[in-house]
């Protein structure tokens, strides 16, 4: 009885699904749960950029964008449900914004032939396009991030950090464990000691980890956190009076809502980033006129210009540029997922392109190729200014230590290829 009602309801839903002619973009967002504080701005930025293209330019190449949102709650089961529910609508690319969901989707999306773009998260070795045909993680990945943090610490210490201690406070999940391998490699190269401090999901309880930091006084703390874990960690660091300028978060631990709760004493906290910060770009004027003022802003519309909003918008921009590239290659406006993949693989982001889009100097230049799905690994360090209430870039974009990373990527992707009997491409 219950099943028949259910069946009828779902059948009705499926019948009501929109036509497949548009360019379908799925936004697997999370606006609920312990990670919502970070999920909302990213999703708003991602959606607003596509809304802008629809409102201002009438879509991309004359094809309107059909934006489908699906709530995952950062939960893998719901993520799978979202993927299965939306893939039939002709989704061009998935941006799950969750390393756990990414791991689920890599085999599924590869089998279904739908590209995944895991920008700055997900499986790092997906950078190797020879093995991961359908997965892209440009412009930077976790291992780049780990290297950026260490390079920055090196710069602060005149290039010598042997004998120093660096503690890694990380989310005890696939996401948080990703940088460990690289940091171990870097520790060997530069001679520092690495202390690992895992924090369990969702990360509200970190007293013992910070007690240990207080006792052992590591010279630097690197954090791999997300959601409520970030706020708690920064608050705890403030509580034990840890010098904030020695505390560096990955790009997922560096948004305004992570530091604001800790008040003035969070001043000086550093976070990595692979794109620029603030809303001082011509594109934001367009967003204001075409999206906000027409009442089409996603969510509450109060996130515009925040770090994660910018990142979501940046992800959408990269997706839109890949669509344009795909349209050029295949000479058709209504591309499908396989053509989208070609567009992503031939994507090239240059300064002129970004300036033309109204985002001058917004991110690093990079070029995707068949072998390299991960860009060049450029990133920068930003610092929190509590008084002004904003992050500012304190370094130029610099490249990660490819000498250490390249063999690790090759090794990990090789293992995956052997496990799954994947033949190398791009020969």
């Amino acid at each position, binding site marked *: 009885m*219950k*099943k028949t009602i*259910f069946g009828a*309801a*779902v059948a*009705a*839903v499926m019948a*009501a699904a929109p036509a497949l002619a548009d360019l379908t973009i799925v936004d697997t*967002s999370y*606006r*609920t749960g312990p990670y*919502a504080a970070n999920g*909302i701005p990213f999703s708003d930025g991602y959606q607003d950029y596509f809304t802008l293209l629809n409102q201002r330019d009438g879509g991309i190449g004359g094809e309107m964008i059909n934006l489908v*949102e*699906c*709530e995952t*709650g950062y*939960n*893998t*089961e719901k993520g*799978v*449900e979202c993927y*299965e*529910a939306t*893939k*039939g609508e002709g989704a061009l690319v998935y941006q799950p914004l969750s*390393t*756990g969901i990414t*791991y*689920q989707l890599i*085999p*599924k999306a*590869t*089998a279904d032939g739908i590209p995944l773009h895991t920008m700055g998260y997900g*499986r790092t070795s997906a950078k190797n396009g020879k093995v991961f045909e359908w997965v892209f993680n440009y412009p930077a990945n976790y291992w780049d991030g780990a290297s950026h943090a260490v390079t920055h610490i090196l710069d602060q210490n005149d290039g010598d950090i042997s004998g120093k201690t660096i503690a890694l406070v990380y989310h*005890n*999940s*696939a996401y948080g*464990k*990703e940088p*460990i*391998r690289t940091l171990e490699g870097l520790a060997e190269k530069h001679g520092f000691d690495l202390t690992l401090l*895992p924090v*369990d*999901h969702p990360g509200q309880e970190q007293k013992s980890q910070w007690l240990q930091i207080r006792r052992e006084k590591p010279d630097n703390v690197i954090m791999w956190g997300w959601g409520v874990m970030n706020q708690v960690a920064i608050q705890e660091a403030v509580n034990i009076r840890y010098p904030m300028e020695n505390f560096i978060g990955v790009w997922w631990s560096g948004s305004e809502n992570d530091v604001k709760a800790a008040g003035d004493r969070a001043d000086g906290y550093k976070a990595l980033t692979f794109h620029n910060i603030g809303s001082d770009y011509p594109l934001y004027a367009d967003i204001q006129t075409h999206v906000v003022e027409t009442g089409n802003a996603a*969510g509450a519309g109060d996130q515009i210009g925040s770090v994660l909003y910018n990142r979501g918008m940046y992800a959408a921009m990269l997706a839109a540029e890949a669509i344009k590239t795909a349209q050029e290659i295949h000479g058709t406006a209504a591309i499908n997922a396989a053509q989208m993949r070609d567009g992503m693989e031939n994507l090239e982001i240059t300064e002129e392109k970004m300036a033309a889009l109204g985002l001058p100097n917004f991110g690093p230049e990079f070029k995707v190729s068949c072998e390299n799905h991960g860009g060049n690994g450029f990133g920068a360090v930003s610092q929190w200014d509590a008084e002004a209430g904003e992050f500012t870039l304190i370094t130029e974009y610099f490249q990660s230590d490819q000498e250490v990373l390249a063999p690790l990527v090759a090794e*990990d992707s090789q293992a995956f290829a052997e*496990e*799954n009997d994947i033949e190398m491409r791009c020969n």
Partner: protein
Amino acid sequence: MFYREAGDFKTSYVEDGQTFPIKFDRFRYYAVLIAAFAVVPFFVNDYWVNAVFLPFLIYSIAAIGLNILVGYCGQVSLGTGGFMAVGAYACYKLMTAFPDVNILFHVILSGGVTAAVCVLFGLPSLRIKGFYLAVATLAAQFFLVWLFNRVGWFYNYSASGQINAPERTVFGVPVTGAETAPWAAYLFCLVFTVVCAILARNLTRGMAGRKWMAIRDMDIAAEIIGVNPLRAKLTAFMISGFFVGIAGALFFAVYLGAVEVGEVFGINKSFLVLFMVIIGGLGSIFGSFAGAAFLVLLPVLLKNVLVGTLGWPTDLAAHLEFVIVGGLIVIFLIAEPHGLAQLWRVAKEKLRLWPFPH
């Protein structure tokens, strides 16, 4: 009218002792089985299998397992998530260590491993009861999750700490991995669910089940009439662990394919399965299915109706979903504390007399 016993004479013990003594009930059961095995596989797609059928079937097995422990034997357990993790990791280790052995045996063996672990954690039940036992099993939950996160051997030292199910086939048809056809995954889980349900049903009707129920109703009285509490309690933990382990193995290998222990088998999972058992009805196999259906299908249905049909914002729908499901749970427990199974029983009583109640 439908559930008439009048005229339905039994002439042998076998007939008298069958699972569904009422003819209509029996034929309905056969009809469900035929539909599930011979009709549904031809009509399912990826969405139906991955969002509806697999979670329903797998949670049903877990709920049956927990129901044996909580509903039949009266031993409260909050360790279901941890025990499912044992099944999942056992399955993963077996799959990677013995790639040539059929996945079918791996899943059954994972159940066996979980049964052993479950007995180990069931030992305190001989000394402590009720809420105190619940706390002891809660310790199992946290310990097991911590163990699988901490010790690299369990996840074969993979960099991410995740376990990924490699492709395995049954009769040449892949049932795990990305290339699995929806019908294959569905049938694989369905076979396990049906066998587990039949097994559980017959166990609970036999001597073992009667001993468990005696322990549940009053353990001292049970001991006096000759039930060995040690054996009764530990067999309940063992059988329960076996089913929960199978559910965990299927959850990992067939349904998700990649698992991160803290997120998938956390304390939430323990509560979810416990809620299924309570809402479905303690001490009822049908109740396990009803509870699993209620808690798996209702959120998906609500989401599809609110977001898909009505076009509401996803965050509003997600929050409302919590409110509606939570509210329904409270209403159900007030209106019918014995769960959905009791509603079904009452309906059957009514149907027996309908349409001439006097």
